């Protein structure tokens, strides 16, 4: 019992001075009866009625689990899938999902509670001690293992036969190459697609929901419209993907012409309507939170903020570049069109982007 006070740990070689031990004399005088591990008898150890009660409790928990499994099975067929019920705190929810989940949950949970209750009340709760074996094998075992390894390698001759060794290493180094090479067709080589969008001269601007052309008078001052090039659906159909949507999306905002402090090109607005790329120059989230009064546009992902009255310059957040502006005008019928494509790549940075 004195062993437990022994700290084999201390660094100081001067054990006399370091390893604290309680002398027998003091230890026997200690007031509480605690000697080593305290072990208290449980009621279930001393009272057979209590033990019987615990046994019944455990069995009841396991029995209730079986009951809930049956509830699950019955409700799987009995409750119609579309039935909804209102439950306080949860709201209106699918009745079947709720009953299935609750019954299944309790069927599982009660097994766990039963098992632990059993362990705590009825199984022996005497702590036992086991010695640890040293993890490092004895020196002679190590030596024998190394010797076996040496004999094995010597018998193979891999040490002496350099030609075999080197050619094997070469072959092993080369054979995974086909796997690596085959990864090449994971994707096409970039051909500057990140620089291009569908926008070009005279392309109509359409809304991104109804795909209707837009007249300037459709946009009141202070309004924000999400828009696309008119051919977006054709491109989508042809390419069978949403890539172009992620690049060509723009925002139209109308402000009073005198509010425009600067633009990316001379008169790129049309009567105070400015068009900017909707794709954030940080990591490419679509931007949608517009503050009418300040003309600030906030990206909901990382809060980069751009000033649409001032060339779309970033004024806050992690984005370092302005939003590219699209020069717009109207056609002879009075619909908004692009005067030219974007003059710089839209969206987030990439290595080859340059200035």
């Amino acid at each position, binding site marked *: 019992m004195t062993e*437990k006070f022994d700290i084999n740990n201390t660094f100081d070689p001067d054990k006399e001075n370091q390893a604290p031990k*309680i002398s027998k004399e003091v230890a026997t005088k*200690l007031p509480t009866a605690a000697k080593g591990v305290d072990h208290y008898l449980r009621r279930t150890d001393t009272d057979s009625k209590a033990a019987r009660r615990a046994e019944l409790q455990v069995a009841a928990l396991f029995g209730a689990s079986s009951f809930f499994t049956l509830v699950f099975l019955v409700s799987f067929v009995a409750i119609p899938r579309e039935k909804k019920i209102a439950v306080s705190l949860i709201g209106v929810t699918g009745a079947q999902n709720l009953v299935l989940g609750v019954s299944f949950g309790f069927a599982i949970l009660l*097994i766990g509670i039963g098992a632990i209750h059993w362990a705590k009340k009825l199984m022996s709760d005497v702590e*036992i001690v086991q010695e640890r074996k040293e993890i490092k094998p004895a020196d002679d075992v190590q030596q024998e293992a190394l010797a076996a390894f040496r004999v094995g390698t010597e018998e193979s001759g891999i040490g002496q036969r350099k030609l075999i060794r080197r050619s094997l290493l070469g072959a092993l180094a080369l054979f995974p190459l086909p796997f690596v090479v085959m990864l090449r067709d994971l*994707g*096409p080589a970039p051909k500057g697609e990140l620089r291009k969008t569908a926008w070009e001269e005279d392309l109509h601007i359409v809304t991104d929901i109804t795909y209707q052309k837009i007249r300037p008078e459709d946009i009141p001052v202070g309004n924000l419209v999400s828009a696309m090039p008119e051919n977006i659906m054709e491109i989508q159909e042809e390419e069978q*993907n949403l890539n172009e949507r992620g690049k060509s999306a723009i925002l139209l905002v109308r402000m009073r012409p005198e509010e425009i402090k600067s633009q990316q090109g001379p008169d790129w607005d049309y009567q105070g309507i400015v068009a900017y790329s909707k794709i954030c120059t940080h990591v490419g989230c679509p931007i949608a939170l517009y503050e009418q009064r300040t003309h600030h546009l906030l990206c909901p*992902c990382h809060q980069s903020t751009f000033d649409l009255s001032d060339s779309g310059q970033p004024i806050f957040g992690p984005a370092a570049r302005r939003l590219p502006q699209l020069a717009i005008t109207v056609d002879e019928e009075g619909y908004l069109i692009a005067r030219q494509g974007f003059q710089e790549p839209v969206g987030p940075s990439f290595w*080859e982007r340059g200035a």
Partner: protein
Amino acid sequence: MSNTTTSKKTPAAYNYVDSRVGFSAALKRNLRKVFPDHWSFMLGEIALYSFIILLLTGTFLTLWYKPSMTEVIYNGSYIPLKGIPMSEAYSSTLEISFDVRGGMLLRQIHHWAALFFIAAMVVHLLRVFFTGAYRKPREFNWLLGIALLTLGLLAGFSGYSLPDDLLSGIGLKIAAGIIQAIPVIGTWALYFLFGGEFPGTEIIPRLYSIHILLIPGAILALVTAHLLLVWTQKHTQYPGPGRTEKNVVGYPLLPVYTAKAGGFFFIVFGVTTLLGALVAINPIWLYGPFTPDQVTAGSQPDWYIGFLEGSLRVMPAIEFNIFNTWTFSPNILIPALILPGLMFVLMGAYPFIESWITGDKREHNLLDRPRNAPTRTALGTMSLTFYILLWIGGGNDIIATTFSLSINSITYFMRVALIALPPLVFIATKRICLGLQRKDLEMLLHGKETGRILRLPDGGFVEVHEPVSEAELPKLLARETYPVWELPQKVDANGIKTPHYHRQMFKARMSAWWTKGDLPIPTAKEIQAGQHHAYEALEQASEFGVKPGKEEIVSATNH
């Protein structure tokens, strides 16, 4: 024990299997293997059980989920989305949610279990860190744990993206933006991962194969290794009566540990199932199908990606153009790649750094109390503070709208706090640890305060101290100190230059920093004297009629 078993007849079935497999020796060794008991040892269990739940529910989900980005028109039973074009992935997820009986439950259990899986791993990691359980011989297991956490994060993110709803699509878009910002290879990496530009049509099937095959396979392999090492090295234990570096005190595998650990699996599973039944999570039908030109305000990733989200948000806008030809984006690379990379490398290297500084190469099976390793504990709370601040930064929009604060102010505050707060927390933690050590020392040298005041015949007041009980003693005695490395001399007495002088100097400085403020370990004599004194004081008190725990103030002259 072997005598009693051999005298009984071997069951035929047992004999049948054993004579083909030969497992009796292993069973004999292991069935009564001892496991120490402590609530904090359940954290790793929660992670393991969550992983099993994930495998179970995940397998069911694969039976209905279609990993395809082909556009279909939704025609299932969720009315608000009827007739809307969407990917097959999203529509099959809706089908699981609304047309497969119990499908919603499976999805929600799966998602809850994923959140618990990573949360349990993180808290388990903290437990292992703060108790020094990673020390020799368990460094490899620490590394395996770090790898498992990394894989867990990847599993979470790849699974989060599979429903192809608007929210998860935004997460993918951010990932794409980060990948394409990588210098030199970024665009190629993006094209290889997505099969071209974002979003393309390849990413969902590829993430699916990563999510259901590669990552779970790797996790399974590493978990097996992790558990095998725990098994062969035997579990660590907290200092306590009868517990030494060379033994394990606890309950045998059969029956107590089996019942408790097995039962605990059902409890974790049961709780997760009830949560899946009662608490909606990731209601993808409300977000709508993904399209790269739309976004919802207040988008938040799952909690474990929050720290990355925060680091992206808090980072100032720094970007360079190199020769007007290449774009270099520290505003993305630092928060999204360099910072998490550094965090994981530092975590992995930590056990080796610590043992280099302390010079401690001994085997440790008794856990440290956090107060007894003040520098380590302070480093831990410091790092945790940094992580939590990042995490809060990731919710700056939610905080701003909830508490009507300026999002700009929160972000500026975070930028300062991330640099200023962790060192303050370091200092505070170290002081607290040393204070607690003083309290322990006080108990050893003067006994335990009882809160009972005794008025002496001469009118003075003393507080009665009582000796520390034997059950508490090992805990108090478990502290140890490390010697400080001597400052090396550049040239020794014989005029010979010290080899690796600068490295040794650095090590000496680190060692001095590590042990700064350490209290001396009391000698056995001092402790004996202290305890004896406390015992005598208690006896004296009882002579005066002080009954333990009865009176607040006793006047000794009354008797």
